[in-house]
């Protein structure tokens, strides 16, 4: 068949098929507009993101970023949040976004404590990580103005953040101490002596220095731990074939160095150590030790206490008392806590230098002052 110039007798299939790609585009367009409508409905009061989303077909990227920014601003957990909202916007905190770990809204040393003890309600809460690179990046890029970092975090100094003074003592004593399975401790009582020697020498300055070597100088935690043990006069006492100990850790670098310190000290004194590091958060490590998958790991007195008592507030600012309370909570779980170090790793609330200067911030309580 020869195509004819008039097109009047074109093959039937070519006519019938022609509509299909067009129809597909129509359907896609319909889908896109439905999407825009749906987002407009959900956005409700704030019409701006929805309006930006209307440009989705032309500039999908803009729509996504506009839609995602309210996404991360989950409301504070308190039911009084909306009632307090009008009053809160008049405070400095009410103008600032707060970034912290996703569990922060439900933790007594985090948003709950900031609300109860300091009366702070922030403009928004951005769920990030537990004092990790996301929080640092969010502070640096201005995504949040106040962030939760740990007091032993070297990036506070390196990045020039201002650690706000906890002037109303929200943070309880989060001194570092090894937690061990009681059965293992009873079988190998000398482990307590070996690890207590480490805790005795671990000061705040020492801990921050260990952290800096790993996170800033990028040294291997193994080498950092070995050097520290040598410098602090730890000498192998010999002995061999004392058995195998499984040392665990959660997934941030301080835990790796601490777990390395414990591991190398045990290895230097006749134990074989299996390392199960980077296991994740406490929610992973606690079940692991309770079920006997690990034998010991580094912990923090107050945080573990509050984890075990479901935020009942049993931890205090006194490490000796908190340690005793913790021992009582650990006992039924078949765990024991060894001697704690002077070094702490507590929640610290930091702002950038620029924010501190703009609002004149020194203490955490300054955030509750009226906004300028």
């Amino acid at each position: 068949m020869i195509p004819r110039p008039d097109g009047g007798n074109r093959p039937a299939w070519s006519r019938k098929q022609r509509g299909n790609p067009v129809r597909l585009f129509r359907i896609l367009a319909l889908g896109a507009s439905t999407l825009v409508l749906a987002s407009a409905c959900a956005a409700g009061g704030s019409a701006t993101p929805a309006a930006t989303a209307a440009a989705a077909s032309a500039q999908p990227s803009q729509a996504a970023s506009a839609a995602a920014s309210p996404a991360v601003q989950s409301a504070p957990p308190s039911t009084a949040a909306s009632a307090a909202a009008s009053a809160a916007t008049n405070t400095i905190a009410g103008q600032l976004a707060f970034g912290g770990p996703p569990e922060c809204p439900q933790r007594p040393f985090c948003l709950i404590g900031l609300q109860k003890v300091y009366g702070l309600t922030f403009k928004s809460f951005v769920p990030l990580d537990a004092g990790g690179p996301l929080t640092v990046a969010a502070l640096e890029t201005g995504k949040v103005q106040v962030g939760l970092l740990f007091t032993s975090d070297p990036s506070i100094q390196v990045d020039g953040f201002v650690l706000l003074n906890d002037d109303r003592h929200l943070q309880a004593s989060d001194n570092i101490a090894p937690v061990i399975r009681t059965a293992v401790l009873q079988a190998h009582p000398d482990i307590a002596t070996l690890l207590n020697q480490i805790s005795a020498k671990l000061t705040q300055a020492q801990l921050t220095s260990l952290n800096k070597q790993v996170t800033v100088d990028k040294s291997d935690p193994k080498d950092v731990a070995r050097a520290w043990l040598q410098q602090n006069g730890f000498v192998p006492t010999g002995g061999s074939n004392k058995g195998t100990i499984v040392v665990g850790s959660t997934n941030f670098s301080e835990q790796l160095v601490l777990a390395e310190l414990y591991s190398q000290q045990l290895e230097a004194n006749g134990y074989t150590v299996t390392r199960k590091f980077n296991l994740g958060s406490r929610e992973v490590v606690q079940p692991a030790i309770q079920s006997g998958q690990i034998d010991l790991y580094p912990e923090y007195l107050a945080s573990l206490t509050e984890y075990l008592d479901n935020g009942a507030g049993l931890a205090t600012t006194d490490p000796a008392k908190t340690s005793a309370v913790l021992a009582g909570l650990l006992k039924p779980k078949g765990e024991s806590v060894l001697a704690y170090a002077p070094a702490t790793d507590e929640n610290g609330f930091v702002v950038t230098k620029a924010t501190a200067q703009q609002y004149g911030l020194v203490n955490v309580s300054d955030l509750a002052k009226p906004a300028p």
Partner: protein
Amino acid sequence: MELAAHVLAWLTDPAHWQGADGIPVRIVQHVEASGVSVLAAAVIALPIGLAVGHSGRGGFVIGSVANLGRALPSFALLLMLIPVAVNLRLDFSTWPILGAMVLLAIPPMITNAHAGMREVDRDLVEAARGMGMSGAQVLLRLELPLALPVILTGMRLAAVQVVATYTLGAVAGGGGLGRYIYDGFARQDTPRMLAGAGLVALLAIATDVAFEVVARITAPHGLGAGERPGGTESVGRLIQESGV
């Protein structure tokens, strides 16, 4: 059973259906970001797949690249793209996950677009050329309509994967239904976590069904549902219809 009741209670709690962390907002965020990712990936993948399929050259390269792309873990991509976004001063809760999702969606679309084009019966293409159709006419009037079901299957695979995987965005502080899963884990709130996972699964199924509907509506005339394009039966029908 008790857990199921907790999950149900969580889902039916009116407080979880309103506000910036409410289910409707999270679903819209999820659909929106997934839709943008799939559309962006389609803009990149389909022209390449169609061009290579139409020309018949470079199929091996396409296959290799797509397979390599499939092997890339989205989680690693997400984490690797975060510092990039920070350096470019882009919102690291939005862009890295979108980048990872676009890269996740490209391989299935590219391979299916290519395969769909190659499965079109060569005799039909020859016949169309013999009748004097230009390359563009062959592509738009013959190959594309016949390959459409396979292309749509690729988009469907990509969309379902993206909807399920976009949950990772919560790790970088992003929105969507992944928030419930990640926050539920962080807060030891198992009902929240399971409700989030269930909602994602439902959304993935809904996506699958939506593409099935689109596929039925756009199925080329002369092709029964589920019939392979370019098969002898369809050729016969096409020939009958064209009156050759």
